[in-house]
């Protein structure tokens, strides 16, 4: 089945070469980082996690988003998702692969990564995150591949795969819950110390994951004969729209608790992210434009996505999905992780700016993710189209 990825149009090969070139440039940056140390990044003693860990956090959400397709299709027997569910499973594979790469890129001693297995430490949330992420990767490879292979052979998938599919559903919830637990169990980091963090993560995941999927589906509709179908599209609009609304509801709850309680530690990071944090005689606000844009884009995206369905406009659908995707990428892929470090527990403010090498490595990991995704989608779509013909 994999041979399908080796035959493609010129456009396909140009796209793959483009991704490979980004991977190459980023690979060189990683060699530099490997030889010099993480000091080559913009991270510091005060802001100890940067864009790697924030991308990781966001991508766990993209992976968990696949749940929104698997659950209706396999549990509620929602047939309209028949063509799109495999895209969700394969997207989860690519997203988890990126997550793992971002973690490795962030390690000071990557050669020792396996110490997490050699010295298992159940009281560490990172240990559990390792288990749930690798487990989810395995489940999606297994379920996605077996179901697609059966389709390729023109038979119904084997019965033994069903328990794995069912297991993958709570597992998807677990990956983002445990990832939230990395942050929300730390005393002294007020911004993260909120019981609503895991629900917030899940809400944004269930919007951002399917939104990205929808954009890709629309691109495929244009460039190939593969169409996920109008009904699936309309249903996804409901899912994305409501999940995105839920995310903003949760964000509003955070604002209420912080500003009504007036507890300084709870307000400081929100001040820093949305209004600018006055500290001494300086104001620190390097993330304010991003965070404000995130809110505007997110709310506009929610409004437009329902308009797009009413008007049955694919163009508007793509725009609204991109708005929602980038809104949540800023919210979680920048603000959430970086904001948690401002101010420090000793009440210092250090702003973080990623270095060129750091951005190169980040771009390369995204490119690798899309490379994996392209191979998997090429296979899946070739099989689906072959069956149609």
């Amino acid at each position, binding site marked *: 089945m994999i041979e399908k990825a080796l035959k493609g149009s010129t456009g396909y090969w140009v796209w793959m070469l483009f991704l490979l070139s980004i991977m190459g440039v980023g690979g060189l940056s990683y060699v530099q980082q490997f030889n*010099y*140390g*993480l*000091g080559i990044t913009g*991270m*510091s*003693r*005060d802001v*100890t*996690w940067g864009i790697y860990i924030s991308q990781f956090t966001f991508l766990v959400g993209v992976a968990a988003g696949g749940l929104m397709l698997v659950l209706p299709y396999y*549990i509620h*027997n929602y047939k309209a998702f028949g063509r799109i569910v495999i895209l969700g499973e394969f997207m989860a594979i690519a997203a988890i692969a990126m997550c793992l790469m971002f*973690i490795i890129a*962030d*390690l*000071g*001693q*990557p050669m*020792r*990564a396996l*110490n*997490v297995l*050699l*010295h298992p*430490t*159940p*009281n*560490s*949330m*990172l*240990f*559990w995150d*390792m288990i749930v992420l690798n487990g989810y990767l395995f489940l999606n490879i297994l379920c996605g591949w077996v179901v697609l292979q059966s389709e390729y052979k023109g038979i119904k998938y084997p019965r033994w795969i069903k*328990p794995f599919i*069912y*297991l993958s*559903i*709570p597992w998807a919830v*677990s990956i983002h819950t445990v990832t939230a637990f*990395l*942050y929300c*169990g*730390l*005393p*002294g*980091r007020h911004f993260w110390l909120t019981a609503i963090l895991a629900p917030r993560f899940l809400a944004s995941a269930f919007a951002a994951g399917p939104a990205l999927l929808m954009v890709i589906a629309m691109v495929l509709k244009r460039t190939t004969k593969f169409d996920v179908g109008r009904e699936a599209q309309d249903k996804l609009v409901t899912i994305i729209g409501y999940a995105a609304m839920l995310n903003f509801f949760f964000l509003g709850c955070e604002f209420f608790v912080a500003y009504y309680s007036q507890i300084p530690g709870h307000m400081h990071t929100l001040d820093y992210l949305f209004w600018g944090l006055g500290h001494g005689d300086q104001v620190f606000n390097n993330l304010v434009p991003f965070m404000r844009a995130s809110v505007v884009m997110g709310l506009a995206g929610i409004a437009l996505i329902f308009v797009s369905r009413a008007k049955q406009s694919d163009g508007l659908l793509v725009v609204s999905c991109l708005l929602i995707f980038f809104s949540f990428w800023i919210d979680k892929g920048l603000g959430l992780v970086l904001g*948690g*470090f401002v101010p*420090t*527990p*000793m*009440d*210092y403010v*250090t702003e973080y700016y990623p270095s060129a090498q750091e951005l190169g490595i980040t771009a390369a990991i995204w490119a690798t993710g899309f490379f994996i995704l392209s191979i998997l989608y090429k296979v899946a779509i070739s099989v689906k189209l072959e069956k149609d013909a």
Partner: protein
Amino acid sequence: MNSKRRDFLKIAGLTAIAGIAAPSAFNTLLKGEANASSAPAGGHGAAAVTGKRYGMVIDVKKFTENPGLAQQCVTACHTVHNVPDFGNRKDEIKWIWVESYNHVFPENTQYKRPDSLKEMPILALCNHCDNPPCVRACPTKATYKTKDGIVAMDYHRCIGCRFCMAACPYGARSFNWRDPRGKDANGQPFIKELNPKFPARMRGVVEKCNFCTERLAIGQIPACVEVATQTKALVFGDMNDPESEISQVLKTSFTIQRNPAIGTHPSLFYII
């Protein structure tokens, strides 16, 4: 279909229960080793006395009376432990350092304060918490609590994930962003004088104050305490020994701890 659905729900329920129960079961099994939950029951209750628990009293008044003493403590520690000096804040590594009151106790918001508070040199270092969040967070047990209450580190096991740095509520941890054994552009080594009795670290690992475990093991007191012996500005000892000097000081003087509300039970006590 319906019975299938019910079966699924049963399995899902059991899986969820197992998932919730597993961490605590593991925790119980591994308690002796990981010491993740050594906090006294009930948060505010007194800890049961078992073995040693090292602590330190920092008498800030005495540091004010002896200007320069705090910096001497810092130098002594950093020299003994091969702490590099990179000359910039971003890469900075420090085990013990001089801070101002409002950074050591940012939670305290007196309306009016003595002017003297501003100038007070307050030493900040690892609090060697009885309930350390960093030990909980570490995925490899590279950070662990010894049985005499010291939060120690194994630099050879640390993978450099910096989870402990996010977890530490006292900013006590530093990371080797670059090679500490290297040299700057002018050929000056970052570690001025290498002490062969203590290992220098490598790049990519976290480090912090270890309460001089290596010195305690051979009957010496911590390097910073040694510098302050004459003035008794730093008092170090076993808080579980009622006869120890630190026990006497803690009994007779009013001390404060850094951010006690978060349940870490620090072993550092300040007399302001």
